[in-house]
Structures are given as structure tokens and as C-alpha cells.
């Protein structure tokens, strides 16, 4: 039982390091790994093997969840390219976008009060569209190796995701 923890997630699943990935291969590789390394397969093994299986499966799960999620995958791609987004640099200094943020927040607060389902669904759709556009722009920039611009798009995408979660929490 062994696995190289130093390789990146794309190498781990033997897929190309890019925005568009071979989902089918990812899925298949993931399940193969699980069948081989899952702690359930080591219930009657030594403590050392149990620990190793736990570490490996945790790593595989983390890698899989990262590549399955568009936002997390984008962040991870940027990190590989040396453009890590963390708590310190995760700010947007674009005044127009800040204005846009405030407007959307206000709109959401109003919708929460009025509880108009049709309007709320419309709003949700708008947010999902904006998020999609961010991702498309990110892909374009990333392919052109304009990683700085790509980072900006991802920070904006994060804002739309948090709005989306807010809507979900409201029920």
C-alpha cells in the first residue's frame, strides 16, 4: 500500500492539468482507489496499515472533491501556477464591482422580506448566470496564461457562491 503524496491531484488521477478534465476517468480512478485503499478493507490489519489507509483515503477524497467542484478546482489550478488565493489577498479593489455587490446584497435582503417566490427564483437564476460567466472568463484567461486576471474572476465567483448559499439558507 503506497501512494505518492507529493504529486498534485491531476497527477494522482492521471488526468491532464487543465480547466476541462476527463470526468469519466476521474470517477473511475477514484472508485478504483477507494476499492483498494478504503479503511473498510483494513479492518483486520495492523494499526500501521489502518493509519496508512486512513491517510491515503483522506488524501484521495480531498483530491477528488477539489477536482469535482469547479470553484475549488479553479483555486487549485491557480495555486499550482503560483497564484494562491488566501485570507490575506482575497480582496477585490474594483469600485464598480463593490457597488454591484452592494446592490445584489440589497436586492437579496428585500427578497427575503417580501418572500416572493417567483422574484426569488429569477434572482437565483441571475446569480447562477453571473457565476457561469465568471467561470467562462476564468477559463479564457487561464488558457491564455493571464493568471492575474483569472484570479480576479475567481474572487468574484466566490462572491456569487456566497450569495447563492445565502439564498439556499433562506429556504
Amino acid at each position: 500500500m503506497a501512494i505518492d503524496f507529493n504529486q498534485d491531484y491531476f497527477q494522482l488521477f492521471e488526468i491532464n492539468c487543465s480547466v476541462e478534465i476527463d470526468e469519466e476517468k476521474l470517477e473511475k480512478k477514484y472508485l478504483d482507489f477507494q476499492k483498494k485503499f478504503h479503511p473498510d478493507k483494513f479492518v483486520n490489519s495492523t494499526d500501521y496499515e489502518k493509519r496508512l489507509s486512513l491517510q491515503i483515503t483522506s488524501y484521495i477524497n480531498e483530491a477528488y472533491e477539489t477536482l469535482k467542484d469547479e470553484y475549488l478546482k479553479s483555486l487549485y489550478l491557480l495555486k499550482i501556477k503560483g497564484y494562491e488565493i488566501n485570507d490575506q489577498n482575497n480582496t477585490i479593489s474594483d469600485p464598480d464591482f463593490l457597488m454591484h455587490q452592494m446592490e445584489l446584497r440589497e436586492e437579496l435582503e428585500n427578497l427575503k422580506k417580501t418572500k416572493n417566490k417567483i422574484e426569488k427564483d429569477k434572482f437565483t437564476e441571475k446569480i447562477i448566470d453571473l457565476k457561469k460567466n465568471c467561470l467562462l472568463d476564468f477559463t479564457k484567461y487561464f488558457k491564455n496564461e493571464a493568471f492575474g486576471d483569472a484570479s480576479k474572476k475567481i474572487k468574484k465567483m466566490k462572491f456569487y457562491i456566497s450569495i447563492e448559499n445565502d439564498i439556499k439558507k433562506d429556504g
Partner: protein
Amino acid sequence: MALLQISEPGKTKDPHDKKYFVGIDLGTTNSLISLVQNGSPTILKDQNDNELIPSVVNYTKENISIGVPIKSDDAITFRSVKRLIGKNYKDFVDNKFFSPCEIISDDNIIRFNVYNKLLTPIEISSEILKFLKKVAELSLAGEIAGCVITVPAYFDDSQRQATKDAATLSGLNVLRLLNEPTAAALAYGLERKTNSKIMVYDLGGGTFDVSILDLKDGIFKVLSTGGDSSLGGDDFDHLLAAFIENKLNLNIDKNKKHELYLYAKKLKALLTSRDSVKVNLIDIGIKSESLVITKNDFNLLINNLLQKTLIISNNVLVDSNLSIKDIDEIVLVGGSTKTPYVKKVIEDYFNKKPLSNINPDNVVAIGAAIQADLLSGNSQEELLLLDVTPLSLGIETMGELVEVIIPRNSTIPVTSSKEYTTFKDGQNAMSIHVVQGERDVVSDCRSLAKFTLNDIPPMVAGAARIKVEFQIDADGILNVSAIETMTSKFTSIEVKPSYGISDRDIENMLKDSFDNAEKDIEKRHLNEAIVEAERVILAIDSALDLDGDNLLNKNEYKEICVARDNLKEKIHSKNKDMITEAIKNLEKRSEEFVSRRMNSSIKSIMKGKEIKEYS
């Protein structure tokens, strides 16, 4: 004695050599123990032939008994102790739980004063597990090598840890804690085997759980799970009791209210098969006018609660990016799904007839047995279960807000790390508060533990980089480790679980139970001797039946019978040595018979076969 039972090749010879892997459904109301034998799951029965063993623990001054409640002033009886496992005294007070005796709690740990012995809910639960273990050992006449115990999906870390602690105290080796809805799906999944998406709707007495599972190519993956830990069939009973109280304008005290509630429970059960019931409160000593309750009255009462379960189910669907039409099967679990209206509401909403061909009382235990079998390594099935963590794990940040570090519905085991730094020069310790739940504010979530990181190397403020790793293992239990990344020095962690029982407490409890163990060992040896004696008698009787007349003369036959009857008599003596002696004597008397049977059985096998078949 091995020779007497002429076993077919491939079958085990001596049951004492066998180690069993069992599944345990440790329920709030009832508990079950089960295992997979020859590929099919079975629920084991206690000596009174019961599968469902009430989760009731009675303490008298001398004895502990499980199952049937003792109605006597000399007994302290605990019911539904599962509701208290992993909870602290504050939870107890907040939830207005009932205690059959005095509680002493100076450290926020629930300790019942049971005849001057202080017992925690963990110790009381362990008595149920000990009993189940004994049921299995007696019925299998073998050793329990490991078990899978089911827990509600919504159990948080402390409840899971406490369940494991109870198992440790009872001498059980826990292979895995398994979420109840997942267990139910496993019970049905094994039946189907085709690729499908399954929704499990689990409405018990006090909790509601929904899980969506995807069965694909031998992997059973939980996609999402959700629920409400304070919604269940008991609420139906409360509504029905309140309805009666209201309709009849009753003015009754707390005790009578409780009796009315128990009465309502019975009415509910009657209404599953009847269209109306007559309320007769004279039975519980309340004078009132008469009242007839129809099925429709009852359905209207519970409709709101059921709508709530549908909303939750729908959210869980959304969590796994599925819609109603994607679901291939709906599985019903929990006693409350026996209510016909529950089935109807589900069927109407999902436009699909839910599966309930496995008894909802047994289905979780059956799933646990299947998982135990899979984990034992002896299973014929190639199936792997991937479960998720049902609750988000977070840490407290500034302003008492929660920062999620492992979101719910993450496949387990899972790891997440978080980097911290110091904010003072030379700071050598810091504390981290870990919580579980979906709310933004710390006080709305369940506090799991407060960790203190010690031995941080002294550095200027902001220079230390402490990487804290949070790991949820396959049982859903949290482990934490920390390392200072600049110096690669491990910082030590002091853990204080919020439910209050530390490893040392568990150690002490174990020691206590060892002090009683000597008594237990004697009892166990006696039980083993009795089981062995019964096995021998059974074997002799069947051998005599088959071959006694052919292979023995009258005197020989009689001699064996005398030895057998002697053994039967000795069983009643409850003396282990006398029983063992009588077994030996019977074995000796039947040696010749055994060897004659061996010879004759070889002859009969060869008879009628051509020589060439042996060459």
C-alpha cells in the same frame, strides 16, 4: 466430541473455533443483534425467542436486568438512555429529560445515583450492549470477534464517541459505526444489486433522517444526508393526546398527561388498521365524555409534520444535485413509517411506491450485519460503502462566528488543515474551539471540544505557522493534530471533549468493570458448559435416532441413555465442574458408538458408486 458429529467437508467442525462478526442496532426503544450466516442476514433471538429487545435497563440493589421493565419500588429503570448518550448535564436540563433517580453532576457530566453508585449514560448503555453480546454468544455458541453498531446519521462527534466508549466498556470490538439510514439502504441494496439511486426515509420515534445513496458498480456511495433530530412519531402521540385533551376539555395533572400520552400511542397503533377508534379514558382513570377519533382526524393532525419531512427530503435531494425523477427507489425505515398515511404522503409526493418489504424494525440491524460481514473479510460480496459526514465541522473565529473547515456531505474519511499564527511575541500556547453544525453563530452549534496547543516555539508575533489538521475518520469521529511548520515541531494538544468523559474516565470505568469481571468469567464458563452440554445431548439424541437401533445392542443403548440423562440432570445443578464431568462421561460411553457410525457412514457413502469414481 468432534468425531460424533460427522460433518461434511468444508463445514466447520467445532463451533467454539468460530469467530462471529455481528451487527447491532442500538435503538432508543428497542435493540437488535444480527449476523450474516451462509450469505443471508438473520436477527438473533434471546432466550425468550424475542428479536426486539427493549432498550430498558433495570437496576435493583443486587442485580442488573435488561429488556422487560421491572415495576417495583425496589428497581430503578432506565428507558431511552440513547437520548442521553454523549450529552452533558446542561443538555439534560435544557431538554427536560426524565430521570428515574437522583442526578449528581458537579462537572456537567450526567451521573445517576443508582444505589449509591454513580453511573453515566455510557455505562448504562454498555449494559444493553453486554446483554446483546451475551444473546449472540449463547445463540451462536461462539466468540464475538467484532461488531458494527448503527447510530443515527445526525449523531454528532460526542454521541458517536460515547457510543464507542459504551461498546468498549461492554467488551465489544467495534469495527465500524454505521449511519442508520445507510444501513437500511445496504439491506435493500444487497437485494437489488443493479445500479440505482436510493432515497432512505427514516422516521423513528424521536428523529427524522433522509439519505440519498448511489449504488454503482459495487460501490455504495452516500450522496447527501439531512434530517431533524427532534421530529418523530412521538410528536404524533403528543398531537393526538393534545387533541383528545382539547376535545374533551380535560383538566388533568402532569402524571395523567403522561398516561394520556401513552394511551394516545396505543390509539395511533390501532389506527394503522382501523378507520376509527373509540376513546375510553376510564382505562387510565380519567372520567370524560365519549369520543370517536377517525383515521382522517389523525391524518389531519400529523399532516403538517409530514409536510416538514418532505421539505427536508427535497433539500437533501437538492444537496445531491438530483430531482425527484432521478430517484429509483424509496426505502422506509423506522416504526413511524408503519402509519399508512405516512406511506401515502410519500407515495403522492415522490410519485413512487416506497419499499417496505423488509420489516422496518429489522432493516437497520440487517444492514449492520451486512456491513459487519463485509468488514470481516469473509464475505462473498464485493461491495464497498462510502459514507459522508452529516454535519459541518467548524472552528470559532472572531466575534463568535463559525468558520466551516469540513462541509457536511464530505465523503469520509476526510482531512482539512488550517494554519494559525501567534499574535503576541513569545506566545507559546493558543486555544481552538471546534464546533459541529450548520449555523453561523458558535452558540447555535454543538460544541465538540476545546483544544489547547501547547509548546509553541517562542517567536515574534505572526512568525509561527501552526498547521492544525482536522481529520474525520470512517466512523465519523474527529482527530486533531498540530505542527509548527517553520520548525517542524509537533505541538502537543490537550483535548477536552465537551461531553465531559475523558479517556481516563473510560479507563476507570473499565477497571471497575474488571473488578466485577471475575464474577462474570465464572458465569460465562458456566454458560459455556451448559451450551456445550446441550449441544452434546442434541448430537447424541439425533445419532441414536438415526443409527442407535442398527449399531448398538440393548445394553449399549441403555448405557448411553443413562449417561445422557445424567448429564441432563447435572445441567440443573448450575455447577460448571459437575457438568463438564458429566459431558466427559457421556463422551466416553459413546466412543464405540461414534467409531461404528464413522465406519458405517463411510460404507454408505461408497455404496452405490462405481469404483472408477474413486480412482
